[in-house]
């Protein structure tokens, strides 16, 4: 790990610090919440920030600070699960397509191209409208995985295609190594850095798409996510009432979290490409 950071670009440090702050905010702080911040009227309504309520309270009598920690936790969990599944499925199918070739490659490539052309949000809106007005988070996650695996798969396939022709892969092949071992030992190191960058990017896309759905009230409004916080704030006229902290805190959280995630993902990919060049 120390070696990893030794010659990493500055942006990677900055991004990692930002993301760690948010992970602490979302993973650890919710345990210390004085009660379930989602429950209405557990705090005085429409308070400005004070010692008791650090970011004030909502018009529904919720503490904005603790609500924000819950929202961050749920959004991060969703993003991580979506990114985890998409990356694993994408890398696996990409390797399969690139390495196996033939009809499997053709079929998989078609699905990659087709799914990349279909905009996710309209499909999610359609599902939400048909399934009773709101989508539960697991369904949103499932749909996001379905539409996000082609990004890593396409890239991994391209790498695997060039790898097949490389000398060292042939050498490994002729010295009797199994296909699985070649994939794991010789090809995977080439795509690991890129996949890590893509993983982080997919966390961002996942959180962003769910929030987009939530802002227009089509995600599960009973769960706290960054998007649903914005939805409730808009719905209760937080802007007209001048309660900028209520609506501002999830907005600022999204902006800073996304900048952090982007810095990490671009830093990781810069670093891994620099390492590839130096080999």
């Amino acid at each position, binding site marked *: 790990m120390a070696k990893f950071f030794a010659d990493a670009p500055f*942006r990677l440090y900055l991004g990692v610090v930002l993301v760690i702050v948010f992970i602490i905010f979302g993973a650890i702080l919710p345990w210390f919440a004085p009660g379930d911040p989602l429950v209405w009227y557990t705090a005085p309504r429409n308070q400005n920030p004070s010692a008791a309520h650090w970011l004030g309270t909502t018009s529904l009598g919720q503490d904005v600070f603790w609500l924000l920690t819950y929202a961050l936790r749920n959004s991060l969990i969703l993003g991580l699960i979506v990114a985890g599944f998409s990356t694993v499925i994408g890398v696996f199918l990409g390797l399969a397509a690139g390495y196996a070739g033939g009809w499997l490659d053709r079929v998989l490539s*078609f699905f990659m*191209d*087709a799914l*990349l*052309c*279909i*905009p*996710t*949000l*309209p*499909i999610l*809106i*359609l*599902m*939400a*409208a*048909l*399934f*009773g*007005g709101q989508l539960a988070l697991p369904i949103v996650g499932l749909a996001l995985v379905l539409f996000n695996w082609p990004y890593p798969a396409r890239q991994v396939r391209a790498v695997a295609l060039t790898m097949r022709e490389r000398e060292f892969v042939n050498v490994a092949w002729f010295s009797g190594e199994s296909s699985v071992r070649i994939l794991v030992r010789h090809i995977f190191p080439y795509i690991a850095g890129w996949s890590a960058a893509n993983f982080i990017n997919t966390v*961002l*896309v996942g959180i*962003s*798409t769910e*929030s*987009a759905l939530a*802002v*227009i009230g*089509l995600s599960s409004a009973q769960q706290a996510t960054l998007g649903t916080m*914005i939805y409730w704030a808009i719905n209760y006229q937080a*802007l*007209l009432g*001048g309660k*900028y902290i209520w*609506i*501002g805190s999830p*907005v600022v959280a*999204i*902006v800073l979290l*996304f*900048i952090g*995630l*982007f*810095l990490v993902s*671009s830093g990781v990919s810069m670093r891994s490409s620099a390492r590839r060049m130096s080999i």
Partner: protein
Amino acid sequence: MNLLRYIAGRLVVYILVVIFALTVLFFVPRLGPTDPVEAMLAKVASQGAYMDAAQVDALRQSLADTFGLDGSLWDQYGAFIKRIVLTADFGPSLSMYPTPVMELIRNALPWTFGLLLTSTLIAWVLGNFVGLLSGWKPNSTSSRVMEGIAICLYPIPYYILALLLSILFSYIWKIFPLTTTIRGAPWSWELITSVVWNSFLPAMSIVIVVFGWWVISVKAQTTALKEEEFVRYARLKGLGDARILSRYVLPNAILPQITFLALQIGLMFNGSLITEILFDYPGLGLLIYTAVLQGDFNLLMGTISLSVIAVATATMIIDLIYPLLDPRIRHR
């Protein structure tokens, strides 16, 4: 000849992609735990419209028609694809009865296209300019500052930026209108200024994000190209910086971005939908939102099918013109 084969290949893939997308759209309503027809009827009833039993039955039948629920699954599928591809007919809008869905879409499309095209163009010109200049002198202070700004802008989703802009410029400083209201007779000066004035914030939210991306990527390309042999040759020949940048570096820096644009169209479209809803901008996004709120299934299916087809078409057009723009691929 090769070019023709390339175009034919792309067209076949395009048709398959559209059919695949429509297949997804066909099966989504059928996968749900609830019967969409009953859900829509409940939605209509919950809006307080009183209907007697006969009217409910008539509506149920008309919904079953639009969902294409008659006949076997295979018949339904065939009828669905045929109706959309051949006639582009989505029936009348249920909430603005009897206006045809296609007419509503036709009125909304220019707004969405106009917004996306104008803002992408502005961002493209500005982003290329700034990206080129900062890539040429990558270690100068202004170049680093520019890249820092771009890195902070690019990851922000359009709708978040739209919210930020409207908080800042419509609520705190009341400069721009909160929601879109277009005034003026057709083709009058008043109408044009009103359109520009109302589109400013929605467009800015897209321009700023796309601008960020363009600066980042063109800068990286330019920095790499600067070290190329042909650029050194141009410099040794005694050409000025401006000419080297515009004739030698720029064409090579822009081309890789075109494929990126093809991949990005779907995401841009997603973003513009929410931006339109937030600003009450009368485009496709607002139409989809109205359809959801009113439980207008015909309108919903029409707008969503059309947006999926539009994004697939835009992606294909970019793929098709790419070899025309890049002589290295054209001559291969």
